[in-house]
């Protein structure tokens, strides 16, 4: 009887994953179809069957293959990375307020990009200058946070959290300082730090995808250890988890997964914070399911947020980070109120 019930639960979880996967397909089609020029579903399908690289005057075909496909794909990849990394961070810190950015990934990436902007490196070194600088910035700040909280092979989780907050706010003030010094670049800086998928191309997707896949894959493989972390690191140790190794893997994998996307789009907030919460309510806290489901829900959310960002006030494009916060923050407050009432 017991085994049956585990199986039943398992079936429910597969059903949920299937449903979210189906929703993702719908979001992808919406993302491909809607925009300044609408493309019908049949045009999308025929463009898909024809494949890329066809020499044609067809506007729908060109828009789809050069703009929308890579953009929707990057939105999905980034949303998925943020969802999985958020779930991992919340599990590691045993704190529902943790998100993929607690270790300084977003502030570090921002500083890298801002340095590139104020010194005009994008103009000198070309299109890849900012992403490379942002990626480096993300890793340098995560590295600093990691070193500050690691002593003789042991990383203290609370120090990690505090060091992350301190380094992030230090970097924010450096960015503010740079903005005052280089006033003529303020608009560019603000736009970068608000996050947006407008600069996406196939090359960007190709550059981000391997890192995002590697990072999220490594995180998923830590699922059972993360489950044990729920009772604290000491309890996890006594359940046979290699605590320090797992911790290091989670830190670096989630930094790789998020930094690879954030380097191109700028920081996009709230997805990594909220998505794991929603999934946990619907599916339970088991990380083996939580992570793939968060990937799908996160990917879905960012596709839809980006769709809103480029269609809500045409012809303007709103930074997608603004949209995710605009919808994410109230939704998060609603979740808070719900859990406070004990309605889980």
């Amino acid at each position, binding site marked *: 009887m*017991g085994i049956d019930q585990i199986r039943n639960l398992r079936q429910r979880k597969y059903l949920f994953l299937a449903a979210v996967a189906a929703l993702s397909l719908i979001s992808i089609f919406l993302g491909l179809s809607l925009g300044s020029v609408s493309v019908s579903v049949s045009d999308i399908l025929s463009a898909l069957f024809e494949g890329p690289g066809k020499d044609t005057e067809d506007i729908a075909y060109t828009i789809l293959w050069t703009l929308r496909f890579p953009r929707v794909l990057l939105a999905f990849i980034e949303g998925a990375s943020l969802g999985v990394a958020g779930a991992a961070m919340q599990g590691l810190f045993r704190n529902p307020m943790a998100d993929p950015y607690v270790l300084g990934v977003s502030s570090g990436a921002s500083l890298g990009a801002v340095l590139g902007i104020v010194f005009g490196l994008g103009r000198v070194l070309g299109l890849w200058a900012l992403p490379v600088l942002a990626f480096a910035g993300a890793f340098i700040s995560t590295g600093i946070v990691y070193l500050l909280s690691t002593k003789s092979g042991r990383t203290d989780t609370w120090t990690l959290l505090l060091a992350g907050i301190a380094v992030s706010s230090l970097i924010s003030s450096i960015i503010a300082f740079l903005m005052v010094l280089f006033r003529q670049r303020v608009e560019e800086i603000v736009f970068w730090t608000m996050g947006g998928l407008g600069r996406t191309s196939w090359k960007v997707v190709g550059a981000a995808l391997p890192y995002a896949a590697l990072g999220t894959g490594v995180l998923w493989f830590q699922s059972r250890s993360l*489950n044990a972390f*729920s009772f604290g690191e000491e309890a996890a140790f006594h*359940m046979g988890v290699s605590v320090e190794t797992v911790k290091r893997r989670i830190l670096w994998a989630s930094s790789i997964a998020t930094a690879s996307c954030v380097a191109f789009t700028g920081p996009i907030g709230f997805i990594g914070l909220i998505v794991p919460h929603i999934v946990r309510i619907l599916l339970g806290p088991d990380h083996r399911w939580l992570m793939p489901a968060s990937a799908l829900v996160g990917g879905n959310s960012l596709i839809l947020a980006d769709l809103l960002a480029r269609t809500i006030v045409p012809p303007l494009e709103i930074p997608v980070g603004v949209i995710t916060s605009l919808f994410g923050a109230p939704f998060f407050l609603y979740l808070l109120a719900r859990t406070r009432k004990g309605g889980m």
Partner: protein
Amino acid sequence: MDYGLGISLTNLSFGYGHSLTLKDIDLEVPRGTFAALLGPNGAGKSTLLKTISGYLRPKKGKVLVCERPVHSLKDKERSRLVTYLAPESKSSFDFSVEEVVIMGRLPYSQSIFSHSPDDVYFAEKAMQITQIEHLRHRPVTSLSSGEQQRVQIARAICQDPQVFLLDEPTTHLDMLFELEIMELVTRLAQEGRTVFAILHDVNLALRFASRLYFMKDGVLTHSLEPSDLSSDVIREVYGVNARIVEDPASGARFVLPYAGNTVKPGACGK
């Protein structure tokens, strides 16, 4: 019934900096024994168990669990040999009871994703003998402290180690479950497992354990058979005057402390 030694400590010291929390402890617990660790608050009892479990590294001395150096074993291997159960452990997420119990199978996991039939079998058995089957789908965060404690004990049993280190396993349990857990632990020892448990209640230890260890200020002061427990030991360790009384019906002995007649430190031996 000689299975060898479950726990063997030689000249064990532990501490931070210059102050030592554990001082030159020599101790041997044969396999298949339920041994109780007793002593006043701050004596270093939990520290001792965590050093045996491999969590804390001794400053000097040797720690062997089932004749193996626990601190140099791989994590999975170590946790198939020994586990430590904290007096209280709260989950930050609302896992269901059966999900928590089956977490005990982590050191045996072949796959990151699925549980083997063995895993399910051990989890079912552990829930059965701790009588928490009816709670299986409840989130652990919604349970009472006593129920949570039984879930943790079930998880430890599901982990199936040779040596159980239990830190006050009966703290939150009411009288009935307290007795049932003690009987369960006794049975584990009869099956050949070694149980070393910190107990707050001397009488519980006196009734169920087959060996008593007393600690005070980081030193192992007494190691004796329950039948050798005298009021002198209680006075030396706890600083409390007591009488050992025998129940005429069952022949069981128990410690009756005198309320309001505690001995001041230094007044021992008068």
